């Protein structure tokens, strides 16, 4: 089970983008988290993947509370996650050939010996030829690079997958292909999934259960009166915030 308990997180502690959100994903379950862009769901996804330290709350992975974030996360917790982001170019080291990009999580965790075999297994699954594996990010299309990023997320055989707007930049066929790759891996491994996105049709088709962001974020609302959030600076997610409801003090 992957449990997010009372998570508050953001980039300014006085104005967090995620407020007291709780969400649980069962073993092998696929949960879609649906919300407008800029609402904070990407931040929650980063917290779930141990990439962003929350201001409050806890992440419990298969019964074990997370003991650190980013590079300080213990290795066995860090490698429990495979993560795919919306913009493959922002998450790919431009110097690496696709083959090395895919193997990155194995190298980073001292499992270099598995790299050749795993990359060899995954390349045909995501549809990358030997010739493409030898190229660098600027020599391939966005769709091809995202295929490599999906392979990278699966290479260390994670128990949990976090896909943040994985297909927002992709055409319909590449979208269906990559969702198919993720689902085939989940069937074989029993991994659970948190898929964050804004496309209801896609998430409902993909996931066992779809959760809407808005009700998640207002567990403590109602009688105290609500006001819309004033337009603020952009979140590091890249898009400006759509008004998020919060409690007036």
């Amino acid at each position, binding site marked *: 089970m992957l449990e997010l308990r009372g998570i508050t997180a953001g980039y300014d502690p006085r104005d967090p983008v995620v407020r007291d959100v709780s969400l649980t994903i069962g073993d092998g379950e696929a949960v879609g988290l649906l919300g*407008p*862009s*800029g609402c904070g769901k990407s931040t929650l996804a980063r917290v779930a993947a141990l990439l962003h330290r929350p201001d409050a709350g806890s992440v419990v992975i298969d019964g074990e509370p997370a003991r650190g974030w980013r590079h300080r996360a213990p290795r066995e917790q860090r490698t429990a996650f495979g993560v795919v982001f*919306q913009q493959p170019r922002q998450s790919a080291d431009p110097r690496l050939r696709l083959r090395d990009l895919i193997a990155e999580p194995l190298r980073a965790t001292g499992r270099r010996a598995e790299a050749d075999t795993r990359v060899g297994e995954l390349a045909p699954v995501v*549809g990358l030829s030997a010739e493409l594996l030898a190229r660098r990010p600027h020599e391939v*299309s*966005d*769709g*091809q690079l995202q295929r490599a990023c999906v392979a990278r997320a699966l290479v260390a055989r994670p128990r949990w997958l976090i896909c943040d*707007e994985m297909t*927002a*930049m*992709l*055409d*319909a*066929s*590449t*979208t*269906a*292909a990559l*969702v*198919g790759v993720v689902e085939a891996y989940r069937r074989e491994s029993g991994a659970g999934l948190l898929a964050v996105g*804004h*496309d*209801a*049709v*896609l998430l*409902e*088709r*993909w996931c066992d259960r779809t959760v809407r962001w808005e009700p998640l974020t207002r567990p403590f609302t109602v009688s105290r009166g609500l006001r819309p959030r004033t*337009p603020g*600076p*952009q979140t590091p997610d*890249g*898009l*400006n*915030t*759509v008004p998020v409801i919060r409690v007036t003090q």
Partner: protein
Amino acid sequence: MTTVLSVRELSVRFRMPGGRHVAAVGDVSFELAAGECLVLVGESGCGKSVLASALLGLLPGNAETSGEARLGDGLELLSADERTLARTVRGRRIGLVPQSPAAHLTPVRTVRAQLAETVRELTGARGAALAEAVEAAAARAAFPAGHLDRYPHQLSGGLAQRAATALALVGDAPLLLADEPTTGLDRELVDRTADELRRHADAGHALLMITHDLAAAERIADRVAVMYAGRVVEIADAAVFFGAAGPRHPYARGLLDALPERAFAPVPGMPPELGALPAGCAFAARCATPKEACEAVPALVDGVACHHPHRPLAEEASRA
């Protein structure tokens, strides 16, 4: 109807190191009339953005073009020099609605300042007339006057898109070119952006939209052109394409079938490299029904470039 853009056998290839060539766009032909919206769909790397760059004269130095792309007033874009393109085409004859409005707007200047600069440059307006023209330009793109003094980072995604559209509309160009204007936007915002662009087509602009988003295409298009491996493989009436009859080219049919609201099944395989296109039909390796004829590149005849296009059932029956 007035033809605003006429593209004839447009090809673009890039010279690569080692004498290689990459055929990014091959033999593309289409016409676009005032008040009409043509949507060019295809996956990343299919050549659709190269086509847009060719029309704007923004191709890199190693590009070679052939064919022609003629505006309604007779100007041929491929042979026009940079001075003509910069002074009389970009912004004046062709308005560009960019892919990422936030990146297109200058971060350190207010929307009003940016609009004013463009209006001054394109119309020569000064003083009170300039201030008035700026507000009118904002209004045309439904950008609220009350937000004109904001900086781009203070705008929502939707308002940033409108600000960029307002800039594109200043020159009152007969042709609007929208390059992936809805990428990364929420569905609601995609719909709103598409509807606003449609409004500008209805107001008499010719609109060429480039996108990989079929839902946005369906919402806005009069006609749809599908690009695959640098070529237009089908060009069809949007109502027919998205309707019961559906597309006729196997790739276009596969693309629609990949939608999550349909079969959610990908077209198997990947497109060929543009630098190593096969001799015959570029889709043959992924096609369920290739036959001997497919060893020759199919020409675009009657709206479809395929030796064995899908036929609507009724037509099939009447042939029997």
